[in-house]
């Protein structure tokens, strides 16, 4: 087990190592160009163009510029290391404001911000050195005063220099904060494959524009901050370094001091310089890390077994490797007949389709995991709605309230699909993970339901005539959430397994505590929540943003999209390319999984709070594609189903699927979905 984990880490290092090295190299190589541009622009003198150009070119070769470039290379390397350490292929989306605050004060993030502030200060120092002029030194000799007796030259604080350094630190900190808030550590995979140079060239204008605008905002914020709190560092530096303040010069933390156009221009320019170099490092890392990687299907040598695609998919590698593997699967299924042939091939002694089995099993388990998650989320949403509707004081909920009827309807549907789901794809899904439900009758007959559950239902269901009665089982099922009184709990105690599926799924196993205490605790928790939810301030921090929680559910949907595309392309290609019919054996399972997922996704988009259209994406540098992944998933799911039905056509009627799904398939065959 540990050896496998070690092997996977080695694989990650092998795949990512070169990419990181190349990205860092390129960003360091691009640094002198940025520096040259900075020097030229910082010496801007439109009235003497010749002198300006010649001066700036002379400056380029001076030793201190070379030293600055060297220092900034170190900064770039540190920034790149942070990029590598913090990247994520699945963005973490804070669902409430409190979660966001929690992320900001997380020690990891604090270190990130601190180091970035230091690095910002270093870059700002380099910028002052390269700008020269009045910004260069922290301590300068005071302007001699008129009084002749004060002849001893004194050292004064150069406030411009301090302003510059502090602005660098502020920019570094702001960069780090925006890095977190905008999820800039998220690696979005491109929608089309392109060469790295072309991708870089495409993003470059956007990068320049973005850094200019961001720098403007940051410098504005910094000026405001300095106006209010600027005296603190100034006094501190003066006392520790025993410097005087020059009485002749304007102090900078006044309005007139800050209205210095040259100071503003230089601060802004150094901010642009800082952001550009850092964004370039970030962009290059993003481009290199999301480049497709070619995994072999079959190992040519025995020691390469760990690196081939089926093995990687079926093991549990670092997420980036898994994403790259699925991307490779999608590409090979679409573009490479030779590699497809390898997928469909049989193992040499034995004649088993190991490659296809491993790949299809992994894709299907990914998809059915998503199905589970969506069902759980829908259940939770339905339950939350149900709790919101009836008044709190009411003890017994009449099932015929309009709100409850709607929910009932919905949950009944989901239940029905669950049965179908369980009956159809249980070989692929562990039974313990399946949401356990008390559905009348049907589960008893199902061979996959646990005997304990069947027994329980025998006890509960047989005695009470659920069918046709006023009280529906679904209301009772949600009893523990609806009712707060203890006696009711005990009455319905036998239903404790049917507590919200979400919690069951989270804990992964049945409750081990005595059920009485457990339900009591649940109750108290609910009461606590309702009590707290009435306090406005707490609501402000705790309230979940519906859009954010939906985004969180679909945050890793890119994997599922690739799995869908890869699987459907492979199945479609198998119609002509699969010589041994290996795909045919899994076709019913694939169709069942896809159709079930289709049903669940359809239902998800009918939930309240769920918009059916993607939000507008502004063409900015910061990628927000994770916000729209669910729409991409919906589209590619439908396309995947159509791809299979279009190629197989009438032959699909011979495939063993449930009647429900057969109807659905027929709709797809007639192009009516």
């Amino acid at each position, binding site marked *: 087990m540990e050896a496998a984990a070690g092997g996977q880490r080695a694989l990650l290092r092998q795949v990512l190592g070169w990419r990181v090295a190349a990205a860092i190299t390129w960003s360091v190589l691009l640094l002198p160009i940025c520096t040259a541009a900075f020097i030229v622009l910082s010496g801007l003198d439109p009235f003497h163009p010749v002198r300006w150009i010649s001066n700036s070119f002379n400056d380029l070769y001076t030793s201190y510029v070379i030293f600055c470039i060297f220092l900034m290379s170190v900064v770039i390397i540190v920034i790149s290391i942070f990029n590598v350490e913090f990247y994520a292929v699945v963005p973490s989306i804070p669902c409430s404001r409190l979660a966001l605050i929690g992320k900001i004060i997380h020690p990891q993030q604090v270190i990130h911000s601190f180091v970035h502030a230091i690095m910002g200060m270093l870059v700002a120092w380099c910028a002052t050195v390269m700008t020269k002029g009045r910004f260069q030194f922290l301590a300068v000799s005071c302007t001699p005063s008129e009084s002749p007796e004060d002849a001893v030259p004194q050292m004064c604080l150069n406030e411009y220099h301090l302003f510059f350094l502090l602005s660098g630190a502020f920019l570094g900190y702001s960069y780090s904060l925006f890095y977190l808030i905008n999820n800039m550590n998220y690696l979005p995979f491109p929608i089309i494959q392109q060469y790295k140079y072309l991708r870089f060239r495409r993003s470059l204008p956007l990068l320049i524009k973005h850094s200019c605008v961001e720098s403007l905002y940051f410098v504005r914020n910094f000026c405001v901050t300095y106006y209010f709190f600027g005296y603190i560092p100034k006094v501190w530096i003066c006392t520790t370094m025993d410097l005087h303040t020059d009485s002749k010069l304007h102090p900078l933390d006044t309005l007139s001091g800050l209205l210095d156009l040259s100071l503003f221009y230089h601060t802004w320019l150094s901010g642009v310089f800082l952001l550009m170099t850092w964004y370039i490092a970030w962009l290059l890392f993003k481009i290199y890390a999301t480049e497709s990687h070619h995994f072999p299907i079959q190992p040519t040598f025995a020691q390469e077994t760990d690196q081939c695609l089926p093995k990687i998919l079926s093991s549990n590698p670092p997420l980036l490797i898994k994403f790259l593997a699925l991307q490779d699967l999608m590409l090979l299924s679409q573009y490479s*007949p*030779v590699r497809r042939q390898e997928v469909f091939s049989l193992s040499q002694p034995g004649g088993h389709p190991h490659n296809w089995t491993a790949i299809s099993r992994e894709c299907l388990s990914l998809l059915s995991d998503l199905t589970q998650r969506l069902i759980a989320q829908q259940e939770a949403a339905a339950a939350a709605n149900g709790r919101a509707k009836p008044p709190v004081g009411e003890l017994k909920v009449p099932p015929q309230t309009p709100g409850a009827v709607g929910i009932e309807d919905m949950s009944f549907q989901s239940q029905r699909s669950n049965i179908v789901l369980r009956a159809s794809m249980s070989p692929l899904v562990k039974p313990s993970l399946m949401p356990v439900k008390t559905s009348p009758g049907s589960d008893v007959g199902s061979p996959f339901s646990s005997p304990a559950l069947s027994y329980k239902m025998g006890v509960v269901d047989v005695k009470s005539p659920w069918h046709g009665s006023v009280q529906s089982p679904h209301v009772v099922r949600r009893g523990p959430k609806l009712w707060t009184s203890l006696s009711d709990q005990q009455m319905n105690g036998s239903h404790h397994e049917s507590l919200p599926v979400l919690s069951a799924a989270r804990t992964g196993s049945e409750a081990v505590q005595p059920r009485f205490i457990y339900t009591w605790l649940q109750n108290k928790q609910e009461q606590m929540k309702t009590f707290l939810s009435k306090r406005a301030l707490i609501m402000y921090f705790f309230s979940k943003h519906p859009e954010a929680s939906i985004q969180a559910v679909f945050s890793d949907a890119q994997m599922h999209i690739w799995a869908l595309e890869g699987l459907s392309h492979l199945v479609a290609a198998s119609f002509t*390319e699969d010589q041994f019919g290996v795909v045919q054996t899994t076709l019913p399972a694939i169709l069942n999984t896809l159709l079930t997922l289709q049903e669940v996704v359809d239902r998800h988009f009918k939930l309240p709070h769920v918009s059916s259209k993607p939000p507008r994406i502004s063409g900015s540098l910061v990628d927000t*594609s994770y916000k729209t992944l669910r729409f991409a998933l919906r589209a590619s799911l439908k396309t995947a189903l159509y791809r299979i039905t279009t*190629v197989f056509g009438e032959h699909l009627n011979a495939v063993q699927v449930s009647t429900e799904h057969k109807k659905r398939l027929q709709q797809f065959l007639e192009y009516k979905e």
Partner: protein
Amino acid sequence: MCSLGLFPPPPPPGDVTLYELNNALVCGRLSEQIPLAFQSQVPDLPVLSLPKEPLKAHGRLEPSARPPFIHHRESLWKRCLSAWRDTGLCGLLRELASAEEEGLRWLRTGSSHALAVCRWLSSLHGSLFPHLSLTSEDMITAFSQAVDWAGCTIRAFAWHPHTNKFAVALLDDSIRVYNSSSATVPSLKHRLQRNVASMAWKPLCASILAVACQSCVLVWHLDPTSLSTRPSSGCAQVLSYPGHSPVTSLAWAPSGERLLSASPVDTAMLVWDVSTESCVQLQWFGGGGVTYLAWSPDGSKVLAATPSAVFRVWEAQMWTCERWPTIKGRCQTGCWSPDGSRLLFTVLGESVIYSLSFSEYRGEMQGQVGGSKTASIVADLAETTFETLYGEERIGGEVHSMVWDPTGERLAVIIRGHPESPGSQPAIAVFRTRNSPVFELLPCGFVRGERGARPQLISFHPCFPQGALLTVCWSSGKISHIPFFFVSTLEPRASPRRSPVPVLGSVREQPLFSEL
């Protein structure tokens, strides 16, 4: 090489081409029926007549609702702001130059000078790429695949790739969707749906239609089971990108995942992920824009024609391109063989069809287009005089639009004719083609419509099981379907009726048992 001289003479005036049987086009009166043996096999397709009169020409000549309102003088500052928002820098300068406020002399003169510089610069730009000085409607007229885009009722036509359903864009900016199996005809209207230049149905999908409009691309999500005749504009997604208008051409990837859009003004073509409304620019300077797109049926390559004498062929995996300069004019139209190994294209100013072959697509050669060195001329369409019983007829000239049927056996071409010479008329010529083992182009005949009707748009049915079905939109507003009955060696893929037979050269041919 094939020339028009080898063609059988055109049918007598008054006769209409009805169908093709036994390698010959049969014409006759409209009332004549298709032979009984074939009648049951042809789906019941709606034959439409959409005359110009009932269509209300849109009265929206003025782009804004300004005239009905009483003129109100606002402050200069507000006017400048709104001008900046409406028309950008030039509008701002114009507003400033025409300001009547006191004490703004220097501002007025300054802005009028700046405006002059702007105009001079734009005229300089226009002299490099003359098409940029056209208005957007003239631009669409020039680059559209419809012969007379501005004057005819039907502006664009698109067959659904899998079902018997087609969409027609009309002069009044509405789109109607006709379906052989249902009587409801949805009519699509949207505030932004103006000057439709092209339409495309999403493959591997029930009912998603992309529409190239003047300012954006609209993607209609139609419910195939809905009975509504007027889907709300909420069913349409708006895909717009600054600087990317008017859109004149659209192409869906055959795998249904991406949409390409092109504008003659924008040097970049856009690859859209429609579901998330995000796009990637494929920038390639030179040429001044992209006028026409054609995605090869196997999904491997894309033809992108530009307004200048150059066109490009993109390879659709790594998105690199090969550049093909033409000698005389811009590439007007092009079409791909079903396996994506051959591109036929025509050039403005020359009355020939060129062919360009590509090495077979294997998928391993990433980032290579693999085109041959030179294009060869496969057909000469120079003007030819036919002596018929009813007088002489002259046919020939530049090609305006060209379509190849999904089986790769028939090629239909709209020959525009010479507008100067009086006797020459636009005509549709049909060729028989074969792509393997060697490329062959044989004459089949001319397609004739009703008296006085000129062809406007042509399109092949994407999955006609008995051969090919050519749909022609005539200038009279009539849409007719002409079946070509033949037995194809290659079944059209994605046929709704029957499943496709394995493509040529598949691995299924291997014997199960060896002889030894």
